[in-house]
């Protein structure tokens, strides 16, 4: 009788603990999703800016058709990518092509002084900073989540309910990895 009571108490404790861990894991994973949607908003903003950029640049650059085409291609790829890993890769490629486009723009003083171009460049820089910050926030949340589901004893609950580690949104760009400083 007494042993049965003790077992019951222990069982209640264990079930209570499982509930607690499960709930906090759910909370964390919701926050990871929320952080991802933050990135998505900023990525979409950048995709929307690119057609305007291409329109503005087109008139000035007759000999740089392939740079422009690469930007357009990179944008399409980025929009089509579905998994987080693919997206990260496509976005990195887009960042690189945009950077080479701006390097080319430097050679056209008229284009550089164009008001629309200045505004677009401004907005793109700001959007890129926002992407960087939202990526940072997302990665922090993923790190919290991944650590939580791998440490004992929470990993037991995580395995029971099939929580799996989330992918980081990584950057391949070496220049960006070195300095977080933002230049205008």
């Amino acid at each position, binding site marked *: 009788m007494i042993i049965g009571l003790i077992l019951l108490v222990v069982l209640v404790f264990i079930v209570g603990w499982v509930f607690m861990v499960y709930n906090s894991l759910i*909370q964390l994973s919701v926050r990871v999703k*929320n*952080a991802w949607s*933050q990135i998505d908003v*900023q990525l979409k903003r950048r995709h929307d800016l690119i057609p305007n950029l291409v329109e503005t640049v087109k008139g000035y650059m007759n000999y740089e058709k392939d740079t422009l085409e690469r930007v357009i291609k990179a944008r399409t790829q980025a929009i089509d990518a579905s998994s987080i890993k693919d997206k990260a890769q496509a976005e990195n490629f887009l960042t690189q092509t945009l950077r080479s486009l701006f390097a080319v723009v430097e050679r056209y003083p008229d284009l550089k*002084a164009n*008001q629309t171009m*200045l505004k677009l460049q*401004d907005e793109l820089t*700001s959007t890129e*900073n*926002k992407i960087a*910050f*939202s990526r*940072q*926030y997302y990665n922090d949340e993923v790190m919290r989540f991944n650590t939580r589901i791998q440490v004992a004893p929470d990993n037991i609950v995580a395995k029971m309910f099939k929580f799996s580690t989330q992918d980081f949104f990584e950057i391949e760009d070496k220049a960006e990895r070195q300095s*977080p*400083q*933002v*230049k*205008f």
Partner: protein
Amino acid sequence: MPFSFIEIEQKKSRLILFVFLFLIFFYFLTVWLLLLIVRNFFFASAFGNEFIFTFPPLSHTLIALAVAFLIGLLHWSVSTSNLIDKISASIDASPVDPKDNYHQYLKNIVDEVSIAIGGRHIEPYVIPTSALNAYSLVDFQDNAVIGVTEGLLARLNRSQIEAVVGHEAGHIVSGDSFNATVICSLSEIYKETVSRLGQGTREFRLRGKGGVLILLIFIVLTIMNFLNQLLNTFISRQREYRADAVSVRLTRNPLALAEALRLISQKWHGSGINGENIESIFIVSPNVRSIEEQEGLAADLFATHPPIDKRVNILLDMAHLDEKTLDENIKNMIRVSPIAKAEFKEGVSSDKKRWFVFKQDEWQGPFLLDELRVLKGFSPTDWIKIEGQDSVFEAFNDDEVNKVFGATIEDKEDSYPCPHCHTNLNELNYEGVPILKCDFCAGSFVDYSGISRIFIREDKEFSQEIVDLASSVYKTKLRYNSFSKPGTSDDWILDCPKCRKKMHRQFFVYSYPVEIDRCPSCSGIWFDKQELEVLQYLYQNKDKFLLQDKNSV
């Protein structure tokens, strides 16, 4: 770091409840002490009884408690409504102007940082002073505000501003900002009362009753200072270190924050900010008090901020750098202006449409639309042709030109006529500030709020002509000073482009004797050609001019 808002909510409501109870207790103590004094000293002498010291009975104490509760509740509810508006008004801060380039730049930075803390909306504010400082506010409805001074925008570079905004965002996420805002609002009410009583005194003094009010002000001031000191003990100095840490976590750049703190502490961090009693909302206390730079128990209790050098050293440790590198970095600091250089292009842009007019048996022109408007004897039946085209037609056939005859520009509400030329003023940005400029006479109209912004920003490069003009104006000032005050022409000639009322011609200030026209209703100022630049140059180089004076004497 607690990013979970639920934990924070719980923590902050506990502290706020504590502050509320403290407020009630404070009033209870005040009322009870008053009761004690009145009972023992005034009554005793009034009834001629022998002096026996007695405590008030329980029933009186309970009444005192009820009164204290009522006063406390009133105080609380009055000061915690419209928190952000009230405090912003008291330090003269206002939301960003979307047309201003510098303000747009600040908005971008604040947006970026708000994404870094998880997408919480933060409203950027600006204080129009040349001081360097920043603050944050959060009210009961969870509206968050981060404000910086114009001086900070004009003097720090982007990563430094970002670090400062990150620090303020740290206060917002940790809930410190909410506590500080509520506590500050509690002492704000006294400041208001004192200033109102002060206005009252002037009237009363005329009737010989000033004494009573002065006594009242004195009492209120004493209570206020005492309460404020006590309230400050609720604000821990440690929260500044924590916010610095959050900023580093968000921007990953401890050096930028160290640079920013060093620069803020070196330049005047308080001038032009009415920050008395609300120091705790700022990144660096706007009032210079020796206690802020001390350590120890008393300082920990009553100071609102930790010593700046200590903060800088902690940040430098994070960056693995020493102070020498910091000073060198500051000396070689590169600051890229948020204003594109192209804006400074002056003169008429060439891509506008122009027309030739057939007058006195020959083609005259080409004229811009605004020039046609003031062209003498130009009528709808005149023959015109567009520049670069061959077809000739009568003026009334061209829709654009026809509008010139339709209505005089003064009749339209959305246009601003130049007070001299009566043509439409162009909206453009000067030093990032939206102004109205005339293409012909090169005069410009600046709103009241824009003037201080222009004087604080230092992006404009002045031509030799402006420098010479400014020096000669400065010499005139010396002449005026040595003889008599200059007489202004004191005329009301020009019309304000916005209000259409006569503007008052006067000196900008007596120390810079440049004549300008000020609108009495909107306080905007019309500057004739070069006057704005000359005044800006004088203001920004006043130290240099003073030095010249000294050397010449």
